[in-house]
């Protein structure tokens, strides 16, 4: 082996012969030794994302005058200008906002809402888009749960482990496929180690208590390692009782209007069956070489949560006839299991399990011009069982492999970029009673590139993706259980090709001022449930009919951003226009499906026992909105800085053709103010959010009233001796104890958002 290249992965920045190379090293070594100590210290303070590693040869061809120990220089890249259309939540703010669900964790982010389905489910909604239009990633690989299939399915990502959450909407989205058409939420928890800890062991322990529902969250992370081997371990446990609310769970006015029911089972003060228990952990190991790394992790999450009672089973006078016999029976001893309250009005609960295997390998600067070659692969074994009255009735399975191979280059000084390939193989199955989607196999392959060119105070970015996907239902025909509907033949295969492109130009006329214009043309191929659904879907109170001839949905978005960051003042404004061609939506057919009789009709007597029949269809839509935030340090006091933040976001979505009705479940106009006091060791903040009424709820939806949300937070950081830091925090949410019914929630008329809650917690890092 050439002594100048002592290891396989040592980078060689020049094409010069080894001898010349070695002479140069002799000269450079001395210089680098001088600056090495400084850079080492600096690098330790920087995150892995902005650090690049440089390894020097440990010897030269001839015996050197002095023997030098190998040394690693951590060069720090110059700070990049803030990326437009990327929001990063990390550090203190992240830990303060971390909640039971990803949606709730991100709820305060501009342009992001939380689509809840009771407190056990919270799915982020970005600019009004969610489900199959927003990709949830865990360290760059999809969560691959069943969240896009139905709004009562939780995202299988544990927010407690998150060390950084990125919300991405710009050219970078082309790396992640059509389902990122509305954006990406990437939760980075570094479960595969990316560096060895400074000491042999480091980590964190966290615990928090929520007065609302007596929720407890506890988590730990351990980072172990030395030299080239690192091991990360983590675990969490969460438990909570029923969520407390200020009024009644079910909006009785809505029920009377929609279902003609005046006597329903309703509960005040809490939402029954919203308790949850969740536990999980991970282990990650990595070999961290000088110019390369390889690692893997295994994780398992078990999440059991209840679904608030929806409109099915609302009517106590409808128990399939039992309601008239049981009152006559004097003695039910021994039959409580089938005639008890739980058996008569069974709770729906979900038992979710996910096991993931993640693999990652990176090779830094293998050849000139190539900065990194990276490989990632995630193998996800997901399943959840839906139980009614403790008895399983439907099981969803999702076995997915997603891989990505990409090369980061810097061929030119001003041009950097990435070229990559991404592939996904998915086997989906729903087995049991509520199998409204057949077993299906899905494959997709995408080739993509993102490039960035910097010239003076201009930055041009672009992204391009070619994607091909195919969907193969395993059945050749569908049958509707218990129905006289003839068998419905299915195509063997549905193929899609999509080309997505994105471009942005950022102008920085001043160092602290930037203007960004983004154009995004992205395509999404239809998802399984949009193509192949057939049957009643109780969580959405619908009977879904798929459409196998749906074509790609196209979003053309123009986004103009303005970002001005001064020492004591910051302003960020984004306005966007999003034209969605062939937007896939559910068209109301005007027919109903009687759940008990399993019959399709034009109309039925008892609305509570019927669901509307929706057919997937396509139609052009338009989404217009903005996000704005002004931050200012009002006073610099000896006790700390007084901070003022004003914020607002809004999106208005309408279909373009026909009667131009509203796209359903859009977030309302939000605005508010936050007043904070910030000190090196502690912070306090009082935040007021006003959400206006959503009077554009969409067809067959009801308006939601506005609300006032007042939250407060305080935290304090202290050192515990030499080795540990302790961070104490408290957060109060919904201090006004308002009844909040979220416009983006499917279940808003049955389960409002949580009432007043106080969270107390501590986090120790060592």
């Amino acid at each position: 082996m050439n002594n100048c290249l002592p290891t396989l992965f040592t980078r060689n920045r020049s094409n010069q012969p080894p001898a010349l190379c070695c002479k140069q090293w002799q000269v450079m070594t001395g210089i680098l030794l001088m600056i090495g100590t400084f850079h080492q210290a600096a690098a330790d303070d920087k995150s892995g994302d902005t650090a690049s590693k440089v390894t020097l040869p440990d010897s030269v061809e001839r015996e050197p005058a002095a023997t030098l120990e190998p040394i690693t220089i951590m060069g720090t890249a110059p700070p990049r200008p803030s990326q437009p259309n990327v929001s990063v939540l990390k550090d203190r703010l992240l830990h303060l906002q971390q909640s039971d669900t990803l949606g709730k964790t991100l709820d305060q982010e501009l342009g992001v809402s939380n689509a809840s389905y009771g407190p056990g489910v919270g799915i982020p909604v970005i600019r009004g888009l969610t489900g199959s239009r927003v990709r949830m990633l865990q360290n760059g690989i999809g969560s691959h749960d069943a969240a896009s299939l139905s709004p009562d399915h939780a995202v299988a990502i544990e927010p407690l482990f998150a060390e950084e959450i990125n919300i991405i909407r710009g050219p970078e989205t082309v790396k992640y496929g059509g389902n990122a058409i509305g954006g990406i939420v990437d939760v980075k928890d570094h479960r595969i180690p990316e560096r060895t800890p400074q000491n042999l062991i480091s980590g964190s322990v966290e615990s928090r208590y929520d007065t609302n529902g007596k929720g407890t969250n506890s988590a730990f992370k351990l980072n172990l390692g030395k030299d080239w081997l690192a091991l990360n371990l983590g675990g969490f446990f969460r438990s909570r009782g029923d969520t407390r609310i200020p009024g009644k769970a079910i909006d009785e006015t809505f029920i009377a209007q929609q279902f003609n029911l005046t006597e329903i089972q309703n509960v005040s003060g809490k939402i029954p069956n919203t308790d949850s228990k969740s536990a999980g952990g991970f282990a990650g190991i990595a070999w961290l070489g000088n110019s390369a790394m390889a690692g893997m992790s295994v994780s398992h999450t078990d999440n059991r949560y209840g679904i608030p009672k929806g409109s099915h089973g609302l009517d106590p006078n409808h128990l399939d006839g039992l309601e008239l016999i049981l009152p006559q029976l004097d003695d039910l001893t021994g039959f409580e299991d089938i005639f008890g309250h739980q058996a008569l009005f069974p709770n729906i609960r979900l038992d979710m399990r996910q096991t993931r295997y993640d693999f990652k390998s990176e090779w830094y600067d293998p050849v000139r011009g190539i900065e990194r070659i990276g490989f990632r692969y995630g193998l996800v074994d997901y399943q959840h069982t839906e139980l009614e009255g403790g008895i399983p009735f439907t099981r969803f399975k999702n076995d997915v492999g997603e891989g990505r191979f990409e090369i980061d280059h810097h061929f030119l000084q001003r041009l950097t970029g990435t070229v990559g390939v991404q592939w996904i193989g998915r086997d989906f199955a729903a087995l049991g009673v509520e199998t409204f989607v057949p077993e299906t196999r899905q494959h997709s392959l995408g080739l993509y590139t993102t490039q960035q060119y910097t010239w003076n105070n201009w930055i041009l970015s672009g992204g391009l993706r070619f994607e091909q996907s195919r969907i193969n239902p395993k059945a050749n025909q569908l049958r509707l259980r218990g129905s006289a509907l003839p068998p419905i033949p299915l195509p063997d295969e549905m193929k899609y090709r999509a080309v997505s492109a994105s471009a942005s130009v950022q102008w920085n006329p001043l160092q602290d001022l930037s203007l960004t214009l983004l154009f995004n043309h992205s395509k999404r191929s239809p998802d399984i449930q949009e193509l192949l659904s057939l049957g009643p879907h109780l969580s959405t109170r619908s009977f879904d009919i798929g459409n196998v001839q749906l074509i790609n949905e196209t979003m053309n978005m123009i986004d103009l951003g303005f970002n001005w960051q001064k020492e004591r003042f910051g302003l960020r404004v984004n306005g966007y226009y999003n034209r969605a061609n062939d937007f896939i939506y559910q068209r109301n057919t005007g027919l109903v499906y009687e759940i008990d009789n399993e019959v399709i009709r034009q109309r039925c007597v008892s609305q509570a026992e019927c669901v509307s029949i929706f057919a997937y269809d396509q139609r052009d839509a338009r989404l217009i909105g903005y996000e704005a935030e002004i931050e200012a340090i009002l006073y610099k006091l000896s006790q700390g800085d007084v901070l003022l933040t004003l914020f607002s976001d809004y999106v208005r979505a309408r279909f373009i053709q026909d009667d131009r009705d509203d796209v359903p479940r859009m977030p309302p106009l939000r605005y508010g103010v936050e007043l904070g006091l910030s000190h090196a060791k502690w912070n306090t903040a009082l935040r007021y959010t006003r959400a206006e009424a959503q009077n554009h709820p969409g067809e067959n939806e009801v308006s939601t009233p506005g609300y006032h949300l007042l939250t407060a937070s305080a935290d304090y950081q202290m050192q515990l001796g030499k080795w540990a830091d302790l961070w104490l925090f408290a957060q109060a949410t919904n201090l006004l104890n308002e009844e909040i019914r979220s416009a983006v929630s499917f279940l808003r008329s049955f389960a409002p958002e949580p009432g007043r809650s106080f969270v107390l917690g501590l986090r120790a890092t060592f």
Partner: protein
Amino acid sequence: MMYPALFALIAAMMFNQAVYAQHLDIEVWGEGNALFTGYCRTPGVVGCDLGRLAQTLQLPPGTLPIEAATGRLIFLSDFRDFSGGDFRTRNPGFQSVRNALLPNELLSYRALGVLKYWDPASSSWGRPPEGSQIRLFGGLEASSQVISDYAQCAGQLFCFSDGSFGTDGNTVFAADGIHGNPELVVDITNNNGVLHTHLSFFLEDQQGEIGGPVGAYLIEMQVISNARYFPSEPFLILFNAGLNENELASALLALIGEPTDPVSPLPPPVIPVSIPGDVDLDGDVDRIDVALILLAVQNNEPLRPDTARFDVNGDGVIDRADAFLAKELCTLRLCYSPTDAPATALNMATVYDEHTGILSLNDIQVNDQHYRAQLQLQDEAIFVLNTVQPDRSRYAAPAHYHIENGILEIPSVYAHGKFYQAILLNIGDSKFRLEHLEETDLVFE
């Protein structure tokens, strides 16, 4: 499988408990090529206490609600009986007990006659007030307008008629006759020939506004089957729209008249094959069965031929041990682990009823044409063609008839709870000889 909501009402009547509306479901059964409807055809079926029914309806003893002029049965319903609001009802329902119909038999109704109105002021039957009508919403899934070919539905997995859902899915009973679609689906039977379902009736004006004058309303219909040639005899449904019991009795008596002849005998009873614990004879053991046994125990019901089913353990006494055993036998959701009903028979194009010897070919393909036919077993392996009529393609695996050699290939026929592959040969004179019969699992292939 439909949940038998009305058994509860029936049971309440059986055990002499007050209910605020009286009705019996329309029991449907088939014999040979014909359909029948009636009350209490199955001896001892829960609720079939006709004496009690007559008493509740204030009819003279021994009187059945049968229209004197026509001999047609009258079924009763009340527009205020269930939640969902006045002027709408799901009753009467339709039910068939185990083996009363064939597996996969598709039942439809056919609306007849005109809407009649009982005016409480004049105490007479006549035309309804101007504009009043009853709208009935039937099932659409087996409508002839259903298109299950996505290529004809712009990709939608199924649609109606011209690719839209704008189908005529309701029937209007008005003073001048029937409007809308006169024939719509009631439901399809399960693997055991069991059916229990309810339709949606609305009282409204011509503009479709729900509501109408107080009185009683009378409509007429019959049921038809895809597996039988002859429909049922027409029958009447009387809806109470706000009359008190006496007024309702008057309206009913005006139809029935004074009993002069003894009640016409019911069709001969057929004891259904019993499933231990299935006391309501709906083909399964569920919580209703357990509750009915407990009610019988509480009421000290003696063991009689018509209550023998309640003695599930066969020890000669109806007691709580029977209810416990029924609970053990309970197979349905929320009682014990769910079982996926085999969906196979739901899609069988051919079924054989061993009781009647009828081979129902619900879908025969001859070249590009589809037909429906019935063959009657004559001798051991000889079937005689009873009926044949053109139809549309309904099934994934139809029988195929080859004109050139007279061979009828049946890829899968459901009989005795199993599936068979069969080949019949046309031997002339409308007779077919069974050439080959082999049990198969390949139901849809």
